[in-house]
């Protein structure tokens, strides 16, 4: 008899954002038992915060769009480091996935003929983002949630998984605690899907919430799975910068999609000053053309504000560093200017961007229909993550699957806006489907209770540590400042080596942090436990960033400004845990692209 409350499922899904919910729905469709676990309440995962939209080549607004263009856009945006098969599946399957949401009750904004409306976004050739004002994520998660609760899925809200359980090579389940009382629970399962989201809390300035401590990345890594391309962390160009307490909160790219422009303290539209070669013939060379593009002129090219996020973020940093920033260390993002072009601009802005209007009005006393916003880069998303098979989403650990932000492959060196929400749907569904297949083909794996006892003891350590030990919040804050400073937008061998050293020091301190109080809903204790995950992903990011001696996509090295390392070819960085517990890294050359996919890329220019 186990001393822990135990649940037994065919398939266990860890994470209830878009990816986890979509996986759970799919797995439940095969009449197997499904358990779904999340750290917050249902419907509160990061997916709820997504604003701009979900990318899918529905071709409702511009019939020239199709999966090939979406595929080529994704590959170009990712600097050709994406897994091409994933980019292909994603582009092909996203439209059907978006339509399916509608069958589950989602109500996207409409075109004049009553179809799903699509908007422009950075790096997408045609208007491609299905959306609901600027609250698309809410619509998506609510549609999935309200459909999901009728599929016989058992949901465990406010539970945190602290370790995966294995039996030999194979996955056997997971171990965690529930927040309310701090009780431990065992979830045994034939197949497990990780859908835990990202890592933003490793940085000081971020658009991410407390949940984003890289749990899935770390759980998978410790269970023997590989992490790829961890150096690629997306710094979204437009986060709020003022007042200090809201620094990092996202300002959707939709603002630029609707015609918003970036200017510096001299009033100059600096994005016209540096247009990368790869995008030259897709980008407007004058403001008038850019404006026409945002208003749906099909012959116009997109304004440089809608270049990829990595590039826009770097341009903003350059403006600030060269002394042309806004008063609080950002630049200006102006949507109010469109009143020169549209008669009822204020109303138009409030309708298209209601939550941005609300957010600035209530948090910064700024009326965006009248004044410009101040914005600067914020840590937003991680392209890197758990390595999975493109078709099945299975990791190197048999029976362990991953989908959504915690998995990697689709986005390469830089993710296009809107490609995450579609990623969740396409690969969440696939993960659910193949996890169910795995569960159907494999029996139960025995759980080793001695292994569980050891983990439980480890989890309780913060209470037993000496009160002299640090406060967990302090260590978290120190780590965040260090990562921001040394592993942020601009990196170098020196900064990264120093970061790796500091991570060791912080890890030492983290082992001794002290938690006060008891096990009931104890935020300090939870923060202490999250530290291990944050440190693991921070180390992985710094190590991968050190390995890639080039500046490409979201990864910039001051000491290697060139895009490619000479003769290195195109590769992914791969991180794995060695048997002695240390982190190792290697390079994996990217195989030659399938011929038909090469042709598409060549055709799309």
């Amino acid at each position, binding site marked *: 008899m186990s001393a822990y409350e135990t649940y037994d499922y065919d398939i266990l899904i860890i994470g209830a954002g878009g990816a986890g919910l979509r996986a759970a729905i799919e797995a439940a469709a095969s009449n197997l038992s499904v358990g779904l676990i999340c750290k*917050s*309440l249902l*419907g*509160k*995962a*990061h997916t*709820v*915060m997504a604003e701009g939209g979900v990318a899918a080549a529905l071709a409702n607004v511009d019939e020239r769009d199709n999966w090939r263009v979406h595929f080529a856009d994704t590959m170009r945006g990712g600097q050709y480091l994406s897994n091409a098969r994933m980019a292909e599946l994603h582009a092909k399957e996203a439209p059907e996935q978006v*339509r399916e949401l*509608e*069958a*589950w*009750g989602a*109500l996207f*904004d*409409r075109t004049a*003929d*009553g*179809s799903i409306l699509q908007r422009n976004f950075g790096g997408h050739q045609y208007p491609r983002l299905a959306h*609901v*004002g600027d*609250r698309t*994520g*809410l619509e998506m998660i*609510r549609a999935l949630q*309200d*459909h999901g*609760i*009728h599929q016989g899925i058992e949901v465990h*809200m406010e539970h945190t998984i602290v370790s995966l359980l294995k039996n030999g090579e194979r996955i056997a389940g997971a171990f965690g605690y529930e927040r*309310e009382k701090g009780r431990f629970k065992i979830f045994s399962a034939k197949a497990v899907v990780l859908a835990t989201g990202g890592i933003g809390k490793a940085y000081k300035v971020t658009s991410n*919430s*407390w*949940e984003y401590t890289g749990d899935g990345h770390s759980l998978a890594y410790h269970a023997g799975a590989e992490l790829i391309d961890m150096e690629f962390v997306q710094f979204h160009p437009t986060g709020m910068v*003022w*007042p*200090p*307490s*809201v620094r990092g*909160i996202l300002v959707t790219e939709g603002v630029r999609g609707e015609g918003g422009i970036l200017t510096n303290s001299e009033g100059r539209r600096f994005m016209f000053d540096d247009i990368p070669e790869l995008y030259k013939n897709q980008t407007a060379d004058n403001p008038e053309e850019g404006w026409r593009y945002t208003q749906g002129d099909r012959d116009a090219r997109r304004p440089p504000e809608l270049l990829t996020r990595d590039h826009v973020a770097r341009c903003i940093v350059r403006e600030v560093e060269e002394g042309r920033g806004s008063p609080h260390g950002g630049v200006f993002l102006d949507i109010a200017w469109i009143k020169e072009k549209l008669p009822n601009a204020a109303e138009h802005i409030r309708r298209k961007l209601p*939550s941005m209007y*609300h*957010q600035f009005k*209530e*948090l910064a006393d700024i009326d965006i229909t009248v004044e410009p916003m101040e914005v600067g880069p914020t840590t937003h998303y991680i392209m890197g993550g758990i390595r999975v098979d493109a078709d099945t989403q299975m990791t190197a650990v048999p029976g362990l699957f991953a989908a959504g932000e915690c998995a990697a492959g689709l986005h390469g060196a830089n993710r296009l806006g809107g490609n995450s929400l579609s990623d969740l749907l396409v690969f969440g569904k696939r993960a659910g489907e193949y996890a169910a297949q795995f569960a159907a083909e494999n029996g139960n794996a025995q759980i080793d209770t001695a292994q569980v006892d050891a983990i439980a003891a480890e989890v309780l350590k913060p209470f037993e540590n000496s009160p002299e030990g640090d*406060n967990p*919040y*302090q260590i978290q*804050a120190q780590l965040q400042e260090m990562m921001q400073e040394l592993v942020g937008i601009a990196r170098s061998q020196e900064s990264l080596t120093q970061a790796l050293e500091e991570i060791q020091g912080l890890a030492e301190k983290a082992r001794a942090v002290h*938690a*006060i*109080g*008891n096990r*009931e*809903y*104890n*935020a*300090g*204790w939870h*923060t202490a436990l999250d530290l291990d995950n944050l440190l693991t992903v921070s180390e992985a990011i710094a190590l991968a960033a050190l390995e890639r001696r080039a500046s490409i996509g979201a990864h910039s090295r001051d000491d290697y400004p060139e895009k490619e390392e000479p003769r290195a070819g195109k590769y992914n960085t791969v991180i794995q845990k060695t048997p002695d517990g240390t982190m190792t890294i290697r390079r994996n050359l990217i195989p030659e692209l399938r011929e038909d996919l090469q042709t598409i890329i060549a055709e799309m220019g």
Partner: protein
Amino acid sequence: MAKTTFRIWRGDANHAKFVEYETDISEGMVVLDAIHRIQAEQANDLAVRWNCKAGKCGSCSAEINGNPKLMCMTRMSDLPEDQPITVEPMRAFPLIKDLVTDVSWNFKVKEKMKPFTPRPPDAEDGTWRMEQEDIDHVQEFRKCIECFLCQDVCHVLREHELHEEFIGPRLFVYAASLEMHPIDTENRLAELKDTDGIGYCNITKCCTKVCPEHITITDNAIIPLKERVVDEFYDPVKKLFRIFSS
């Protein structure tokens, strides 16, 4: 930087009381920032829910100086400076710990309601066509972030505790989003009348006043639902009239 005193509700279902904390307030801070600062510096084990810090997820509901609000959208500069600020959990739900309450009832009630049931797709491409103007009002309901502040203030739940007989404003908004959905085919009027207790609502509009998403809960969701219930069960002539005139 100004020092401000907070009186925060601390404890669990068995025993809880206000505890005072003092913390520094800087420009632009919201109540949630102050709570986080207190948590990080003085009360590591303080229980509080939050996620987005931008009014999008509906996690951080509380009663601030007695008013039901999102902590992340309540600016310190909008509160009186000369007296301590009280922060309490939502009072209409059982306390778990500190500022965290057990809101699971809302999820259970929703699960029992009839789900969305679309008519078969009727557009050529296997989907539906819907006019923007026909979905505007449903989109209003779908803005709901499930913060449950409306449930917290509704006297039918808060004072009369009719949780078994009344689903509360949030779930009327949900029912309205389904009933008025242009492609939904289900009929939920019998449940609204019998098990959901829409008759208990006496249109005080307290729910509408606290909704951080500015959903006109009473006028746009509850009253039209009440009318439909009346038409369906008490006034068949009016029902016919409405069908023909719409």
